[in-house]
């Protein structure tokens, strides 16, 4: 498996990354071209038709030049301080740890729920509404509880409770939902042909779950894991912001800082956005890699 993963990384992943970079360059060009176009217009008639109002303003405050954004990476908040790129890098690592825990916890909870919901119509009807309700409650209503709870002395745990774990709890709250919903769909996806086959063997529910429903749901689950991995990263970022995690500098904290000083240094918010984006892509990419490896080995790959 290790070797397989590596091989995939070598071929498909490299191609993938190259395409991504090509699109990145295209995007940067489009950004610059749009900015130049807007500025040319500015010089003549700013309010011409709707360019003035509908599209983002093109001045350097609202659309800092690409080079400014890039060079900002090497700068630091104060003379001799840590550069932004190194701050972002350690921030991303910090946030990824939170996201990873959130992903694992959320996926497990989501899977358990999916299995429960897939059991019977009654279970689905009784439990599904609560899953929905849980998602409709905005994080702002639960963060205080989670934070308090994290601050209480969870002494009985074999490990010490850290504030970042509260962030993971919050992020996992966003994570389990797509896994549960797509998971149910996947667990119910086997054809009646396969289910009847299993029934004809007098297979137990557990066997059917394990040998039919679970493998058949893999393509669905990986889609869900993609959603969940992304949700875990953004949940960790948002969680950091809303709990104001101390004792560490995650991406969320950085982005919050950057957003607050947007007026002064718009480039920095772009740094934050780029940092968050790359972190999200990294998480997503990991899932894609695992998906390719597993689905290739079970022949359930839908493309490539």
């Amino acid at each position, binding site marked *: 498996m290790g070797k397989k993963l590596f091989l995939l990384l070598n071929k498909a992943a490299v191609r993938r990354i190259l395409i991504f970079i090509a699109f990145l360059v295209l995007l940067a060009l489009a950004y610059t071209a749009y900015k130049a176009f807007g500025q040319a217009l500015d010089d003549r008639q700013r309010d011409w038709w709707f360019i003035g109002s509908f599209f983002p303003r093109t001045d350097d405050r609202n659309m800092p030049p690409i080079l400014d954004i890039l060079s900002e990476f090497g700068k630091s908040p104060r003379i001799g301080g840590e550069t932004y790129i190194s701050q972002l890098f350690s921030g991303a690592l910090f946030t990824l740890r939170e996201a990873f825990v959130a992903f694992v916890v959320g996926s497990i909870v989501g899977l358990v729920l999916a299995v429960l919901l897939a059991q019977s119509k009654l279970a689905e009807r009784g439990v599904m509404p609560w899953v929905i309700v849980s998602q409709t409650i905005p994080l702002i209503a639960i963060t205080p509880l989670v934070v308090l709870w994290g601050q209480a002395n969870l002494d009985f745990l074999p490990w010490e409770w850290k504030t970042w774990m509260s962030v993971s709890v919050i992020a996992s709250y966003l994570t389990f939902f797509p896994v549960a919903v797509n998971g149910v769909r996947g667990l119910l996806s086997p*054809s009646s*042909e*396969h289910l*009847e*086959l*299993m*029934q*004809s*063997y*007098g*297979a137990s529910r557990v*066997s059917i779950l394990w*040998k*039919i429903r679970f*493998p*058949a749901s*893999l393509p669905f689950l990986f889609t869900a894991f993609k959603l969940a991995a992304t949700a875990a990263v953004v949940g960790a970022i948002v969680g950091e912001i809303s709990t104001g995690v101390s004792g560490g500098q995650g991406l969320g904290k950085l982005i919050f800082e950057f957003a607050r000083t947007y007026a002064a240094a718009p480039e920095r918010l772009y740094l934050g956005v780029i940092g968050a984006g790359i972190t999200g892509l990294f998480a997503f990419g990991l899932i894609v890699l695992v998906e390719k490896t597993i689905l290739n080995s*079970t*022949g*359930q790959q839908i493309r490539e």
Partner: protein
Amino acid sequence: MEVVSISNLSKIFNTGKDNEVEALREIDLTVTKGEFIALIGPSGCGKSTMLRLIGGLIPITSGELSVNGKTPTKAREERDYGMAFQSAGLLEWRTARKNIELPLELMGWSKAERIKRANEMLELVQLGEFARSRPAELSGGMQQRVAIGRALSFNPALLLMDEPFGALDEMTREHMQDQLLDICHKTESTVIFVTHSIPEAVFLSTRVVVMSPRPGQISSIVETNLRAGDNTADNTKIRNDERFYKKVTEVREALYGK
């Protein structure tokens, strides 16, 4: 010993809806241990439905049906059945061998035993080389053979087979017929076997049950029993025997009228 006993069995799909279909009407049939029943009848007359009823996969509408003195559901749970469906129904994420291992896994065989048996079965269906292929890489007939291997792998007491040899050429088909008979005699299985081939029905069976078009009813039952209990009988001889041709004609007449 009665293995399957059916009396006054009817099956209606979509009762009360505008697409109601009366699939089976007042079926009576008793199958005793060791019998090989061939079920024959025009397309859509309810053969598959009958197998699925006996297998306890769909509920009966009215009448009575018991398998080994139990309800079909009970019998199913006690693993009395081996079924081969009309379509192969392989698990696409498993290799051919792993597909054959499926029922063995469920019955708790050890890994070594499973592999041994699966390989035997693959040889039996002449697919030894394709053990590691996935269903999508097999031809239609090869898939069907894997499904047969799977149904036979665990020596079920009651075999329900729905046109298992439909996609095979004559030669392979004859080979499979011989193998099936061999296994059934060895394990004393009872078989209910749907086919569209009259010679196949006659060759394999002890009795041929002939069904009439929708609503499916049993129009006649032809005693064939060319082997008359002699399991060592030479199959080639039987296929060329005059009694064989006579029975084929008899079944054809029962089916289509003179």
